[in-house]
């Protein structure tokens, strides 16, 4: 199979990159291992207000539907339930449908592989009933299944607070929010107040000491600053933060830089969202963990840059659009994330050996 642009990952960033490339007449293929496009947007029921100006505020799954509708208008080839597993010597991408592997020759590749949730380890953390907050959210909003009746949340990020509220809305009793720092980490403090008002205790400077249960979690010990308490729960949702998914970049031989504010090791890229492999672009959480609006913007920039290299858009026009999108990115993105991103770009432009990792 041959295509102009192969987009790896059909979440918000991949879809917005697809819109930018396919709407300019390029032959675009999206590959995603899920059976449905939209990525993690599909189980986001909260309203997203900080979206790029072309989008009205809407709920996450509505945004997914909107993006999917937009790519339908421009005939994008979709390889759902397919995974990228490697690369051939001639640069073709090896894609599997879980039975066979076939090569796809792409002129440009845009990798929007997203982020993975990290675990919070404690004795017996691998027991059934203990899961990431993203998993719990997927269960209630996509699978329509109750993951438990009595829960605790480990962590207090915006994502954790939002999920705690959604769990309560479907009737799960949230018994406590456990945070090892001395205060709630969420930037949207209203959600923290909403949870406090509904009587949920926040245990700060605290952590789970141990989980117990026969085949699944039934009880946890929580170490508070001055005592250890025991809670009966059948669900523990943990938020260990997220990190970019890098597998494909390793296989492509891209260089990496460490940027704490972007989530750790991140492939290096320039202001065109182009990696050190000139035919490979990057978008979304893979380019640094951020919020929904900026995810779309990075996809748009990557899509415009790939279109420019394939002569589907003039360099002058591309520059103008990129500049406007970067400006919007600066407005929508949390300040420390944006400044981390700017630093990441600078490190790539003028490399200092100790900040880089070349696989």
């Amino acid at each position, binding site marked *: 199979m041959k295509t102009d642009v192969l987009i790896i990952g059909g979440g918000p960033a991949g879809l917005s990159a697809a819109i930018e490339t396919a709407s300019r007449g390029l032959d675009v293929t999206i590959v995603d291992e899920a059976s449905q496009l939209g990525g993690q947007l599909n189980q986001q029921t909260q309203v997203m207000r900080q979206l790029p100006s072309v989008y009205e505020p809407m709920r996450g799954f509505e945004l997914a539907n909107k993006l999917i509708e937009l790519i339908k208008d421009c005939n994008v080839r979709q390889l759902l339930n397919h995974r990228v597993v490697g690369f051939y010597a001639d640069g073709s991408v090896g894609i599997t449908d879980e039975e066979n592997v076939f090569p796809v020759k792409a002129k440009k590749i845009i990798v929007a592989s997203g982020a993975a949730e990290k675990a919070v380890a404690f004795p017996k953390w691998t027991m059934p009933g203990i*899961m990431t907050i993203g998993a719990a959210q997927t269960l209630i909003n996509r699978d329509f299944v109750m993951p438990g009746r009595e829960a605790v949340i480990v962590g207090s990020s915006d994502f954790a607070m939002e999920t705690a509220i959604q769990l309560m809305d479907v009737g799960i009793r949230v018994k406590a929010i456990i945070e090892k720092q001395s205060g709630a980490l969420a930037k949207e403090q209203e959600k923290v107040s909403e949870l406090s008002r509904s009587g949920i205790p926040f245990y700060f400077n605290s952590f789970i000491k141990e989980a117990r249960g026969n085949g699944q979690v039934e009880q946890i010990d929580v170490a508070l600053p001055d005592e250890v308490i025991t809670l009966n729960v059948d669900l523990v949702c943990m938020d260990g933060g997220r990190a970019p998914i890098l597998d494909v970049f390793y296989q492509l031989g891209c260089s990496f830089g460490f940027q704490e504010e972007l989530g750790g090791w991140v492939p290096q890229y320039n202001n065109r969202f182009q990696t050190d492999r000139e035919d490979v672009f990057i978008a979304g959480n893979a380019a640094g963990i951020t919020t929904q609006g900026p995810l779309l913007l990075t996809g748009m920039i990557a899509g415009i840059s790939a279109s420019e290299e394939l002569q589907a858009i003039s360099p002058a026009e591309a520059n103008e659009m990129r500049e406007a999108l970067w400006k919007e990115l600066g407005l929508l993105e949390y300040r420390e994330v944006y400044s981390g991103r700017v630093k990441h770009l600078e490190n790539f432009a003028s490399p200092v050996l100790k900040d880089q990792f070349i696989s």
Partner: protein
Amino acid sequence: MHIEKHPVLGRKLHTPVTIYFNDQPYQAYTQQSVAAALMANGIKKLGVSRKLVQSRGLFCSRGRCCSCYMTIDGEDHVRSCMTEVEDGMRIYPNMDDPEVRREIDED
């Protein structure tokens, strides 16, 4: 338990199917993942770890952690969070490593 009426999304479970876990029938709905459908029926333990034989269940629901491996319709080590239920599906827990070595010249 299935969520019959979701506070934001309303009623979304329309097409019931029957799946079999350890040869026992359970009700699920199309578009649910195998791991989720089992959880709705109170089954959280999907297998055991290979070395210390400890219980394992759904952890990331994204297909990355591989904690939810099961044997589905005769195929071992299938990620049950990334597989949608089908009517009549036969599901068994992942109790040990699958047999990957085969006689290739048995004729």
